[in-house]
């Protein structure tokens, strides 16, 4: 790489402005608002019910948020690209049906079932994505159609009966927990990864002669991440251990955060959502990218189907119903713009956690289920209102 002259370093410092300690914390008002809202909900429920923050309940909470989270991860990409996918709920039901049928009726072992499920998800993503990208049928329509078609296919293939119970091998995906030891090992690896990422960024920045954050701050970052990770492991281990589905969520979230932030594909998806005309004239193959986005989203729906079916130990006719709405709500609460071009995986996960916390807390308090619908609906609208309001204020100030 190029060597840095003193003048260039000076220039870079000028270009980035002089950095005070404070400036290294990028103030992302939206992210803090979201985390603040989540903490407020947790504090409220823990005051209302003493067991809300107990390890048992937290373990349940993370288990419950898994399916919505996996769907929301794929939905972020779709919405960022300026589209929508209404079919994922039915797709979860349909693929869940196939999974249970192959496993229960035809005695297929877990691995081939998983492979077939994922292949079906990818194939359906190809078909829906192709119609949307290459045949220019609006995503809303294609996936609304898909929603009906997949629900119909579920009824047709299973003959409208519940298919149960699954083989023990397949059930592990949805029901098992990591042993304490493995939990600590995973926590340790997580800490190590966090440390490597922080330090690599430092060395990369200094290689190009950019100002590097104070070492103390880097150490602080690593300590904060470590506390969060190891604290989480400790809480989970004091019940049954880390739930396997949640571990899958974490892995998928890491992969897709990497895709959105560090790959050319991710960058192009954000550009397409931000300004499709400009993206096209910049030489981006919009059609291919949009199709791939749907392939990824529907493949994730297949994974969600595996988790859900395994957790319920059955494929039911109503499995996955309205899950697409939960996923969309999670994205939107997490700051994804329905116009396209903006949104993050992390935000969507926090959104999913908000939705699941509401569900969980209200069930814990034995509130009737109609309240859950009303409260969740209200929170969704409120979240978007707050988001738009703060954004307008920022724009007016600029």
């Amino acid at each position, binding site marked *: 790489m190029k060597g840095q002259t003193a003048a260039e370093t000076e220039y870079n410092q000028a*270009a980035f402005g002089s950095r005070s300690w404070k400036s290294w914390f990028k103030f992302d008002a939206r992210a803090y608002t979201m985390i603040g809202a989540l903490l407020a909900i947790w504090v409220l429920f823990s005051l209302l019910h003493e067991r809300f923050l107990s390890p048992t309940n937290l373990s349940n909470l993370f288990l419950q948020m898994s399916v919505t989270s996996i769907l929301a991860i794929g939905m972020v990409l779709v919405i960022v690209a300026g589209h929508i996918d209404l079919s994922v709920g039915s797709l979860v039901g349909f693929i869940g049906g196939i999974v249970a049928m192959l496993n229960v009726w035809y005695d297929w072992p877990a691995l081939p079932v998983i492979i077939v499920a994922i292949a079906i998800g990818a194939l359906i993503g190809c078909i829906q994505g192709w119609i949307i990208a290459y045949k220019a049928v609006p995503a809303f329509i294609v996936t609304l159609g898909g929603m009906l078609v997949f629900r119909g296919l579920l009824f047709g293939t299973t003959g409208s009966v519940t298919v149960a119970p699954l083989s023990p091998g397949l059930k592990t995906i949805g029901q098992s927990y990591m042993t304490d030891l493995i939990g600590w090992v995973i926590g340790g690896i997580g800490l190590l990864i966090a440390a490597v990422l922080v330090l690599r960024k430092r060395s*990369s920045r200094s290689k190009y002669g950019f100002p590097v954050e104070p070492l103390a701050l880097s150490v602080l970052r690593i300590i904060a991440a470590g506390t969060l990770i190891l604290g989480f492991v400790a809480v989970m281990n004091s019940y049954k251990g880390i739930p396997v589905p949640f571990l899958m969520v974490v892995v998928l979230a890491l992969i897709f955060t990497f895709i959105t932030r*560090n*790959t*050319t594909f991710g960058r192009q998806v954000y*550009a397409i959502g*931000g*300004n499709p005309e400009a993206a096209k004239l910049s*030489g981006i193959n919009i059609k291919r990218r949009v199709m791939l986005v749907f392939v990824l989203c529907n493949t994730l729906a297949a994974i969600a189907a595996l988790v859900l079916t395994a957790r319920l130990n059955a494929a039911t006719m109503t499995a996955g119903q309205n899950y697409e709405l939960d996923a969309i709500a999670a994205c939107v609460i997490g700051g994804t713009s329905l116009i396209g071009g903006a949104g993050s995986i992390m935000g969507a996960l926090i959104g999913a956690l908000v939705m699941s916390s509401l569900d969980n807390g209200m069930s814990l308090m034995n509130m009737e289920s109609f309240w859950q619908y009303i409260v969740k609906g209200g929170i969704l609208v409120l979240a978007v209102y707050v988001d738009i309001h703060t954004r307008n204020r920022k724009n007016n100030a600029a």
Partner: protein
Amino acid sequence: MTTALEMRNITKQFPGVKALDDVTFTVRKGEIHALCGENGAGKSTLMKVLSGLYPTGSYDGEIVIHGDVKRFSTIKDAEQAGIAIIYQELALAKDLSIAENLFLGKEFARWGVINWDRAFKESEKWLKEVGLTDVSPETRTGTLGIGKQQQVEIAKALSKNANLLILDEPTAALTEQEVDILLSILREFKARGVTCIYISHKLKEVFSIADSVTVLRDGKTVGTYSIEDITEEKVISLMVGRELKQLFPRIEPQTGSIVMKVQNYSVMHPDLPGRKVIDDLSFEIRQGEIFGIAGLMGAGRTELVMSLFGGYSGAVSGTVEIEGKSVRIKSTQQAIKHGLALVSEDRKKYGLVLGMDVKNNITLSSLRHISSGGVIDHQKEIYQGNDYMKALRIKANSVETIVGTLSGGNQQKVVIGKWLMTNPKILILDEPTRGIDVGAKFEIYTLMNELIKQGMAIIMVSSELPELMGMSHRIMVISEGRKTAEFMAEEASQEVIMTAATGGRTG
């Protein structure tokens, strides 16, 4: 003859620009009065003031109609005073019938229920007025040709009891026969005492139909002349008659070999079958030169460069050679691969992702330069973004500034930076200095010089003749999709360019 309209001392300010500066415009009753001027001379602004689109108070001066001072707050007020304007872009609801369009917003309704029989009857009457007797009022307007749609628009204006009809570039999209029909309708109106303001670039039409002509230039009235007292040449010289005040740092061409050769190039309109937006164009471009393309709005300049770049949806015929090899460019990806780059005329719509920051926009077309295996090296991106920001003197806090917050000139530099990063052989600049301040303009000219020194070829499309003449080495003029002239910059004058651009063949 009495005065139908008098616009006195109209001044209209936009932030940083005086679009109209003390314009006075008088139209006699029952005449056809042409309004001429270059792009940006203030014609459209003046008409927007007249039609109430810019409400009273947003400009200085007064409007007098048949002796009364009028203050229009809305378009509706202007309509009530008998003013109807027909824009270049027709504003019919294409999925509604002629009758529905004619009476949109003033349906013959009682308790909200429309009396369709009456609407059809009335429609027939107004259609007859404009000579449209061969179509039923139930026809969907979208199925009509542009000429007939325009006649429907005129019928709609008349049905509002308009006695002052304004036509803004009415013939831009019409075929020759359609133009003849339109002109004969207008002559008929004149005989019945309807006053008409006719805005057109096409001086032949102006001279065949108008009684008098007013010329605007740089937001000021140059003068009003009776058509018998003036010639086409004189009007052109009045339109362009400005001195080259700006400084153009043109350097000698560094002419090398031919990089691009375009022959018998035609482009079809994507929506209107049978209509060519570009008709049988041939030209070639050499390394190290700036090739200017002149033409009036709607002449097909943007369509030409967009289709060369693979970004236009109309079908293409003819051949394009790049560095001696015949190429067929069907997508922008291919265009970039063949070394083309296009800075489009509308940077916000086609050039930038406004919500992204400076470096993300600069690297958008060259992500492979800053990535390996599809994974972006963020620090490298910042580094390279910085290089372009420095080289182009983009004024932003850092490469992480959102481009939507930058000034027009700096946004334009970001777009140019994006294309330079792709290492193009041919850089196409469509209206490169539109809407940016003088200082930034000069910087862009200087940059163009540096680029041709490095052997790049530049195609520059511009509506600003001084800029085009000041910077290009050769100039091609197109009019209605056809090449009407090509000259070396030394041979060009604003008059000959305008003559060619308004349809006259020279050279």
